[in-house]
């Protein structure tokens, strides 16, 4: 029998029982894919984590878990961390160690994190506006590339912040924000985020607001008490839930700005000396904030990941061995059931060697198909790992 004939007979048999063949191919593919994908995902995640950490030289934030602070600042993961007050940020800026970039990561618009920051963030992350323009005023936002694609957002659209607790009627009011631009993709957590000016984040927090002019006659019903120059408004005063050109001037801040909250601050030191001075400044016992080297925090995290990976790999190998054993059993049973078919081949002239080649070809086709499928899936996993990581972290 010619090689073509053997291949033809093998293919005919495998396609005669498609469900069995596909199950075997899937079992082989999964047995190979799972440990490989785990390896690829972890190594790719480590690369992506380190890359982002490397582009974030230092982080200053409230004392607590350095990994939580790093994940919150780099991946915008929701964390129950205490806040850093604006006075601490101003102190950091005033020490002239380098460029200090504020981060306010608390609110969400649906599932997307709303990041309050300054324009310096976009320069640091090399984030360009692909469509539209950068934020210019209170109430403006730019959205990450993936978020824009998912929600079909474009410049001129509106996006609303989500209330933290729907049952808290006295809580934070949702703010309807103007989308001024869509950022170019940078395959990081930035692609899923909504970016606003820090002051806009404070508006969402309720620290600033705009309302009807209490001096005007139409606001008469909203006045509770008037004593000389002091007007006290009641709860009926109309507050704006969207910043427009018409009401922009009415927005104002309450309380002491020094107490306003931030999540953390990225510090980009001007020099090695400035870096060393900054590290020394915040590592003293009297320091009320902590300074974190994100690369070190990420390294600690990836070491934990590697330790976990070894355990999971061992489990996958055992499972893989069991799956391959089952596949071998399926083949052996299948060949036993096909004894009459094999005898027919012998009667029409096939040798024992040809029969063995026939059986081997069937097994080889299933194995090769499984390997090709698993390798294809690994390639896809590698390309998606960078995008998947922020989603998994959130």
């Amino acid at each position: 029998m010619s090689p073509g004939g053997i291949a033809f007979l093998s293919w005919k048999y495998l396609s005669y029982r498609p469900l069995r063949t596909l199950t075997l191919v899937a079992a082989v593919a999964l047995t190979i894919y799972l440990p490989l994908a785990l390896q690829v995902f972890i190594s790719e995640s480590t690369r992506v984590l380190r890359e982002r950490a490397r582009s974030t030289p230092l982080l200053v934030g409230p004392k607590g878990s350095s990994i939580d602070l790093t994940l919150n600042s780099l991946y915008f993961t929701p964390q129950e961390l205490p806040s850093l007050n604006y006075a601490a940020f101003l102190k950091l800026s005033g020490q002239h160690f380098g460029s200090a970039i504020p981060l306010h990561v608390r609110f969400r618009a649906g599932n997307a994190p709303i990041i309050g920051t300054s324009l310096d963030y976009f320069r640091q992350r090399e984030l360009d506006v692909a469509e539209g323009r950068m934020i210019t005023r209170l109430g403006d936002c730019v959205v990450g590339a993936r978020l824009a694609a998912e929600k079909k957002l474009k410049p001129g659209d509106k996006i609303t912040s989500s209330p933290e607790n729907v049952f808290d009627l006295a809580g934070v009011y949702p703010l309807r924000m103007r989308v001024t631009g869509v950022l170019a993709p940078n395959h990081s957590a930035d692609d899923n985020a909504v970016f606003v000016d820090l002051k806009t984040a404070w508006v969402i927090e309720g620290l600033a607001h705009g309302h009807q002019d209490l001096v005007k006659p139409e606001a008469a019903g909203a006045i509770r008490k008037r004593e000389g120059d002091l007007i006290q408004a009641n709860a009926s005063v109309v507050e704006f839930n969207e910043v427009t050109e018409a009401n922009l001037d009415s927005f104002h801040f309450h309380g002491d700005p020094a107490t306003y909250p931030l999540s953390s601050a990225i510090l980009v030191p001007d020099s090695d000396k400035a870096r060393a001075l900054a590290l020394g400044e915040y590592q003293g016992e009297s320091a009320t904030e902590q300074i974190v080297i994100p690369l070190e925090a990420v390294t600690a995290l990836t070491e934990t990941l590697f330790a976990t990976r070894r355990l999971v790999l061992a489990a996958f190998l055992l499972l893989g061995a069991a799956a391959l054993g089952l596949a071998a059993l399926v083949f052996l049973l299948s060949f036993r059931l096909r004894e009459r078919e094999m005898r027919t081949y012998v009667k029409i002239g096939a040798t024992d060697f040809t029969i063995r080649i026939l059986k081997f070809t069937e097994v080889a086709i299933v194995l090769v198909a499984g390997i090709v499928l698993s390798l294809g899936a690994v390639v896809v996993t590698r390309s998606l790992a960078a995008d998947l990581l922020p989603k998994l972290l959130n």
Partner: protein
Amino acid sequence: MKSRCALVLGLGLSLLVSCGAKKKQTRHEQAGHTIAAVNYPLAYFAERLAGDFATIVFEAPADEDPAFWKPTDEQIARIQEADLILLNGATYAKWAATTSLPLASTVDTSSSFRSPLLEVKGTVRHAHGKKDTEHSHARTAFTTWLDLKQAAAQARAVADALRKNWPDQADAVMMNLAYLHTDLAKIDSRMRAATAKLKGVPVIASHPVYQYWERAYGLKISSLLWEPEMDLNQDAMTDLKKLMDANPGARHFIWEGDPLPENIEKLKAVGLTSVVISPCANRPADGDFLTVMQRNSAALESLPN
């Protein structure tokens, strides 16, 4: 022979000068540094200190007060792109409070003042609830540079920011600052001498923009809300009469800009001499910040004792 030598020397020199100018222009164009300022005094300081290596962007139109001017989104975008953004501070240019500006390149030039900022009096304050602290939507007095010592401090803040941004230009900036400080100190001395005759006598001003000038030179100024080109009708004159009754002995009336001739006459009729003290918040039609301050001093010097 001598004239030929002089011609050759002259040609050589002019060639050198033109080459130098070309070099300077080329370097300037290549560097492409931009500095945005929110008012003319800061733009002037930046021009004096960094005009050789940076372009100064001052977007406010000539016919508008930069304090109340509102930039368009496109203008804000241009300001955002500047390497350095000079704010006056003291709540000047309210648009800056609601605008997204890069913190790293934004400088509040009045943050180093030793004397506290002054608050505009007589504005309605309000509170939103029992727990809320009362507050006013009014601004802090913002014409900081009319106290020429404060102007010098603002120029120093601009120079510090320039040195930080462009360390290679630090020497040139410091030399320019020394010249600028000398000029401002001269004007300050002249202004101090010129305002001596107003001390102890109440002065009425057309607009509440002279608070720092009043404090710096020990004056007593009460303000109206008048514009130089407005028609002084019966209501306006009644307001003036009330202010004059509250400030007996007032003989001088200060305008921000050149008033209408009939307004000068109307004030003369009630015993007030008009004098123009321009805050020079916007780019003057002729001259510069220093010449305007000199004109202010000269106007005061010309007043009868």
